[in-house]
């Protein structure tokens, strides 16, 4: 047990330590400073800009940034949608997998465009290799989009009074080429050497020790799995995601994949400090996020290690902790840690069955996605946190008797309006979605086109656990996380379409909001700091931000959590 905990702690600490130089590198990339990779990437980027006819030095305001961001995403969506819809008759399909139904293609295309990867299909039977490649492309660019948006917000925070906030395409391409690509290459090579396949050949046939003939799915998996984590996408090549022995063969690959999903979200926060030359601010932000993360991760790891009280009551010893739904090669400690890391960071890849976690762990996984601001996804993690900073600045500004200001810019009605709207959107999407599904389930409605049979049919478990399954699915969608509680019949028009809509809204509106606020603030008059100004790089301000996040999440979701995992927790306790 101590060895298990040691493994968890060392992976966490190594990730933080390595994130600092990576953060410095990221800041340099966005500042346009010289880096050691210039000789490789300068010509590549020049070529990309040349063939696409983009002037990468043209300064854009926040509205132009948004326009560029939204239009490229729309094109990718349609491209992906059509490939999935017709993959059965297109090339690179050695296993002859069928084309997707329109609702599944809609859901899958959106979920990959928005960096969520909800996956209401199983990769082995649901996708051709061409589709896998298109999805892998989206895993790169959707992560790059988040980072480019964050880079614009960084720039807006840095400048005194301006509407020139850098070039979107410049930030985007550089995020992909200089940050995502090299890191993914490292991870892919490591996975390749540990046994993950990377081939375009179809299924392999093996004979098991028992003498059965088994077909084993393969494919270009190593590259896919690398960007799945580096870009905090989380969509697995195989249905079982990172619990699959080919997707995550050993404890070492498990450690590498954990590191891979933590590195950019960690490094982006440090990058902010280097970019603004306000390192203390980034340490405070990182500190707040880390406290939040630990408060989620410690109870989870402890309950998983302690095992299931219901089994204990039966008089069965559980020396290895709660092992239901977990891989023996990983164990409960690192699986518990992974389940929180993947939900906090909006990766959504899983190495254990979240449906089988202890109720308290389930509550923590849900809470991690409900908060959706500790570390967070690739680039967008900071954007979510930024909203809470704005709200905290506003309330604490009033508390010290001064019109609230953040980095020398006044926070006024307009910014509060946008921030409040974004803060409401998250609970609205989760609760409204779950309410809709609960309503049908409660009345066991016949769903017609939307679902074959009556609504309760999509639940594998009755009662509180069934409620958790529905709550988790919408929470995972709204947090753009993509992990599944599973145990839910989700590949049908009802779930594909409703979660698809949630995904769309919960990705783009929370990007538009922070971009708009940052753009509006950048345009305002800069006010120099005085003794009366509330400093935002102090511990006490960190406490304030934490309180705002905790209170908003707790207040919005307490009743839902009480009816789901908490009810279960008290029942089996």
């Amino acid at each position, binding site marked *: 047990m101590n060895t298990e905990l040691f493994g968890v702690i060392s992976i966490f600490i190594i990730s933080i330590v390595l994130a600092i130089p990576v953060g410095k590198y990221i800041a340099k990339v966005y500042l346009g400073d010289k880096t050691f990779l210039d000789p490789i990437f300068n010509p590549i980027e020049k070529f990309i800009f040349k063939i696409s006819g983009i002037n990468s030095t043209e300064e854009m305001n926040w509205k132009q940034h948004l326009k560029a961001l939204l239009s490229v995403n729309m094109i990718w969506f349609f491209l992906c949608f059509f490939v999935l819809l017709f993959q059965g008759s297109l090339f690179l399909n050695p296993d002859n997998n069928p084309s997707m139904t329109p609702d599944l293609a809609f859901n899958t295309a959106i979920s990959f465009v928005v960096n969520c990867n909800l996956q209401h299909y199983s990769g082995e039977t649901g996708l051709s290799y061409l589709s896998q490649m298109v999805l892998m492309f989206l895993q790169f660019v959707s992560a790059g989009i988040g980072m480019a948006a964050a880079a614009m917000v960084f720039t807006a925070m840095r400048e005194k009074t301006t509407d020139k906030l850098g070039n979107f395409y410049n930030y985007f391409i550089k995020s992909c080429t200089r940050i995502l690509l090299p890191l993914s290459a490292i991870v892919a090579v490591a996975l390749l050497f540990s046994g993950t396949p990377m081939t375009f050949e179809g299924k392999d046939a093996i004979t098991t020790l028992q003498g059965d003939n088994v077909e084993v799915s393969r494919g270009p998996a190593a590259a896919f799995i690398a960007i799945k984590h580096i870009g905090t996408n989380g969509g697995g090549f195989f249905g079982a995601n990172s619990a699959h022995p080919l997707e995550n063969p050993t404890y070492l690959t498990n450690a590498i994949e954990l590191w891979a999903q933590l590195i950019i979200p960690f490094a982006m926060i440090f990058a902010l400090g280097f970019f603004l030359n306000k390192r203390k601010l980034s340490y405070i932000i990182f500190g707040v996020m880390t406290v939040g993360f630990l408060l989620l991760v410690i109870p989870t790891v402890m309950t998983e290690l302690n095992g299931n009280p219901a089994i204990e009551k039966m008089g069965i010893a559980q020396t290895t902790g709660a092992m239901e739904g977990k891989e023996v090669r990983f164990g409960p400690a690192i699986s518990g840690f992974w389940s929180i890391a993947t939900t906090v960071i909006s990766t959504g890849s899983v190495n254990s069955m979240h449906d089988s976690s202890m109720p308290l762990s389930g509550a923590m996984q849900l809470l991690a996605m409900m908060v959706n601001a500790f570390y967070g996804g690739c680039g967008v993690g900071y954007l979510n946190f930024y909203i809470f900073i704005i709200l905290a600045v506003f309330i604490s500004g009033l*508390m010290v008797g001064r*019109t609230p200001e953040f980095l*020398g810019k006044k926070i006024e009605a307009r910014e509060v309006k946008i921030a409040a709207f974004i803060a409401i959107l998250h609970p609205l999407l989760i609760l409204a979605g779950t*309410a809709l599904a609960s309503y049908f389930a409660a009345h066991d409605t016949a769903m017609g086109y939307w679902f074959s049979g009556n609504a309760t049919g999509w639940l594998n478990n009755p009662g509180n656990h069934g409620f958790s399954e529905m709550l988790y699915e919408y929470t995972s969608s709204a947090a753009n996380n993509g992990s599944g509680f599973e145990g839910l019949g989700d590949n049908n028009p009802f779930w594909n379409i409703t979660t698809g809509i949630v995904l769309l809204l919960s990705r783009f509106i929370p990007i538009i909001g922070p971009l708009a606020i940052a753009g509006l603030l950048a345009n305002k008059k800069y*006010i120099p700091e005085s003794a009366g100004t509330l400093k935002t790089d102090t511990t006490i301000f960190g406490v304030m931000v934490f309180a705002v996040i905790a209170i908003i999440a707790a207040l919005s979701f307490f009743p839902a959590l009480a009816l789901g995992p908490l009810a279960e927790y008290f029942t089996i306790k």
Partner: protein
Amino acid sequence: MTTNKSASLFESKQVKEALAQSFVKLNPKLMIKNPVMFTVEIGTAIMLAVCISILMGATDQGSFTYNLIVFLILLATLLFANFAEAIAEARGKAQADSLRKTREETPARQVLPNGEIKNISSSELKKGDVFVCESGDLIATDGEIIEGLATIDESAITGESAPVIREAGGDKSSVTGGTKVLSDKIKVIVTSEPGESFLDKMIALVEGASRQKTPNEIALTILLAAFTLIFVIVCVTLKPFADYANAPITIAAFIALFVCLIPTTIGGLLSAIGIAGMDRALRANVITKSGKAVETAGDIDVLLLDKTGTITIGNRKATNFYPAKGVTEEDFIKSAVLSSLADDTPEGKSIVELAGAETANKLSIEGATLIKFTAETRTSGVILKDGTNIRKGAQDAAKNIAKQAGNAFPEDTAQKVIDISTNGGTPLVVIKNNQVQGVIELQDIIKTGMKERFDRLRKMGVKTVMVTGDNPLTAKFIAEAAGVDDFIAEAKPEDKMNYIKNEQNLGKLVAMMGDGTNDAPALAQANVGVAMNSGTQAAKEAGNMVDLDNDPTKLIEIIEIGKQLLMTRGTLTTFSIANDVAKYFAIVPALFITAIPALQGLNIMHLHSPESAILSAVIFNAIIIPILIPLALRGVDYKPIGASAILKRNLLIYGLGGLIVPFIGIKLIDLLVALFM
């Protein structure tokens, strides 16, 4: 500071009036201005409907008594919130009324254009009319003296019993309605239409008729509306959740949950806090033209203060004569006195005083020509009957005169000038027939306690700037002695203006106080311009506040009032939201305990029963409003200890306190409620 600053918060007459108003304000048309309380009103109406439906025979909503109690508590919540606003208004009105009493109908003698005098009532006077006042008269309305000079008793508005002198032309030409002329006769032109004087505007602001929400108040209302919306979402979606869990929830429980969660505490007190802020300004004898001005005052970064009268006591006094080499002291004093005999400035008089009556009586300036001080020559003096030309003035002006006549500026005098300046004095050089005779030392006396006040301002983050006509050396000495951060020496009116503009370009907010007509542009440019009540009409029009006490240090108080206003809002918001945690732990188990007994584990307060838990939570939610009314009216204490320290302190008191207090309060109420169940 005139009136009852120490008066109790609740006077019975005001309370009665406020109680009546609490019911009037239930009108939904008035209520909708406050989105948080408006939703409570809807909830109350629904509860009324539920009560009626039970009387008509509905059975699935619990007992009539229980529902009626919930209805009554909700109604009380509304009334408490209305009472908070009404009592703040009543207090402001009482304060304004005491000022208004001074301007009840008084007889006035209007001067018609043809010169005739007509006796009319003050209310008939219109803007531009002229009236006369003699000793013993009450001045009919606000105006500006266009002819004459008078001593005036302004104690009715300032509380200061010493009479003041007001005269035509110059910076002390303004008179206020209701004050009394003690001597002499003045002609006054009316400067405002009836009902539009500053006081009238202030009264309207306090009474709420024309009260507009300030920018911060608007932003906060948005935030509170957002919180309300979140809880609308939480409560509406809870219905299908509960259906799925087979846990039927009564309407009373739903509405109780909703009302407890939305920020009713701050929502109910918000407008009372705003009104109380202006009321506090009024108590400090400052009339503000808008609520925004008070709020802006809390954000001030730079404060411009005139040296004379603010930092130093009144005027400079002559303290020493230093004759130049080769001039006897007697001759020098003679010249100095001759140049000052006809000079009725305080400085001039002090020179004669220093020389002594004996010397002065021997000298005469009969038949002499007086030369008045002008901004260009910056000297003044006399040309005697025999043609002797004596001038005194600033060092550089005197130097010019001597130079133009081909005379040298004596070295010892030049040295003395520097010595005097570096010691904070003002050197006044005397010239006779274009030859330098020597220098007179004038000294400033710094008011006591200024250093502490400036220290306090510095800790608040406010930079103080002294404005003076003195030369830079003198200005520097006084600035250091008084403890101001910066100074503008040899200031011309446009210098003030430029300084303000420069600071504003750096993004800072500037406040200044002024009285003269030439201050008007700067007062208008400043973010907070406080005009003295004794100042000219132009100055009063340009500023956004008027100080009835004419006290130049009043700005410090105004800044604190502004800060208190924001702080009270911020802290009560935090308190209100933090309360929700305890309320959740009271109500959520109560909602589900019958259907899911395991959730008893969430009932950490061990409340008696689901009904008692819900009642305790709504009762707590209601009574916390009146409990906090005194705090809303008085404002949260402001201490200049730095922003982070204040945040820490307020977060501890109102954040952590807001988390813990309701746990205790709800438990105690539950113990009481359980006795009756």
